[in-house]
């Protein structure tokens, strides 16, 4: 077999660093080494300049909640979390956007969330990240 390297070969090379950062309580996004574009979700080539030279950058975790929902019935059986749980789409101040989990408030509900409100990254513990590598956010 000939040697064929120099590009991202599989999804593990993208999910691995992201999940490792989450387990350490950090939120990172992909960064293009050529045009500096910040990219979510991480890709095999830069969507802006098509470069294959891609790295990572830690972000502030501050952002705006585009929309959200509380799933109360019918979670996927492979998810192994009982309903209800909160899901949201956050646009980070740095630009990229991502699907995330939302922490409930002190009252155990998600009633306090509204679209376009400020939210901040509030990571789940490492055990949760090991099961489901999602970024968690809470009301700012």
């Amino acid at each position: 077999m000939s040697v064929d390297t120099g590009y991202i070969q599989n999804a593990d090379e993208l999910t691995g660093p992201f999940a490792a950062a989450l387990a350490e309580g950090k939120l990172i996004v992909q960064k293009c080494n050529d045009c500096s574009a910040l990219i979510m979700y991480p890709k095999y080539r830069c969507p802006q300049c098509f470069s294959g030279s891609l790295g990572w950058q830690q972000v502030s975790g501050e952002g705006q909640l585009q929309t959200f929902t509380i799933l109360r019935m019918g979670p996927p059986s492979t998810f192994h979390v009982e309903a209800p749980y909160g899901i949201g789409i956050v646009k980070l101040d740095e630009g990229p956007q991502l699907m995330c989990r939302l922490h409930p408030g002190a009252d155990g509900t998600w009633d306090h969330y509204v679209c376009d409100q400020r939210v901040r990254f509030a990571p789940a513990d490492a055990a949760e990240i090991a099961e489901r590598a999602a970024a968690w956010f809470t009301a700012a």
Partner: protein
Amino acid sequence: MTDIWTPPYPEPGSANDAAFIGIGEIPSGVYRERGFMAQIVEASARAIADAQLQHTDIDQIVLIPCLHGIPDQADLIFSRVAEELGLHGRVKSSVMVHSGGSTSDNATRMAAGLVASGQARNVLVVYSEKWGSADLQAMIDMLSVNGIPREWEAPTGLQFNAIGGLITQRYMHQSGSTAEEMASVCVALREWANLNPNAMYYSKKLTVEKILASKMVSDPIHAFECPFLADGAAAFVMTSATEAAKKQDAWVRIGGSGGCVSHYSAGQDEDLGVLGWVKAAQEAYESAGWGADDADLGEIYDSYAAVTTIALEGLGISPKGEAAREFHKGRFSPGGQFPLNTNGGLLSAGHTGVGGGTALLVEGIRQLLHRAGERQVPNARRCIVGGTGGSYMDAQIMMLERATR
């Protein structure tokens, strides 16, 4: 605004001008005794008869996929339909086209292109789905990995009703629409379904009160605002306008079309309250030479109320932010100013998977052929058909026109 490339559309009535000449459909709902292939053959036979053709006149098959299971989908891929219809050794090819809920629009483009380029004379397009009889949890799990990036969004517990919730929440926030106004979308569609004997909920009434009293499934969507999975099948036949004119008094042509793939994953769309409709509509209207104000009716994908209200606003049929309120005022109901989803839509005729969009397309053709019976829109000449697939990844528009000899 980006430049729109408007392709040269075929001259109306020419040999390159693709024409819908026949439709076939069987009732949607839960029909456990009705098999997948039996549904395909029956819907096909009805469409071929409606087109005043013999089955042996079909020289090309375009298949719309099922989502209920791989073995049946493999039957589509590997030409079983050709053999079941007695067309083996006769058809040039049998292919499947797939873009989820917008497949019917893309299958139409493909069938029309085959006719226009002289590759086919009579094209049969057919779908069959067995969602109503399938195991519900298995379908929930299947729909939780299709159109959702397994590496990046599945870890949040996302599934299809949650995507509907995310879109609806954004739409209600932007438009200020109330829960009652959103529920009235489903009620209007049910009133249409009550006029359609093929609809899953032909004989069941629905009210705003009943919707708002039903369980919350994925905020702000209630149980009675979710589409119900159904079995169903429908088919249509396309040929050229010159062929159509030999046998038919009337047929349906494609005046123009537009499309925009706005995203793959819901989390990456720039604005879930807008999606790809504005760009797609600009292309569709420029290519057709007519637009929202000229349409007699619409058949627009409606797996959730907000999916349709967002489309209506992007299409310019409703002013920005007003579609749900217009539903509440009755504009889109039977007897209203703008008949919409006159078969009851996915929400009330039944969600037959990829076929739900096909059922809407077939209904649009039926209306323009003036074969819609009790729910016929008087003198319908122009219909806007809209489809969208996956996590509402695209907006696909077909500008259909009634043509006569």
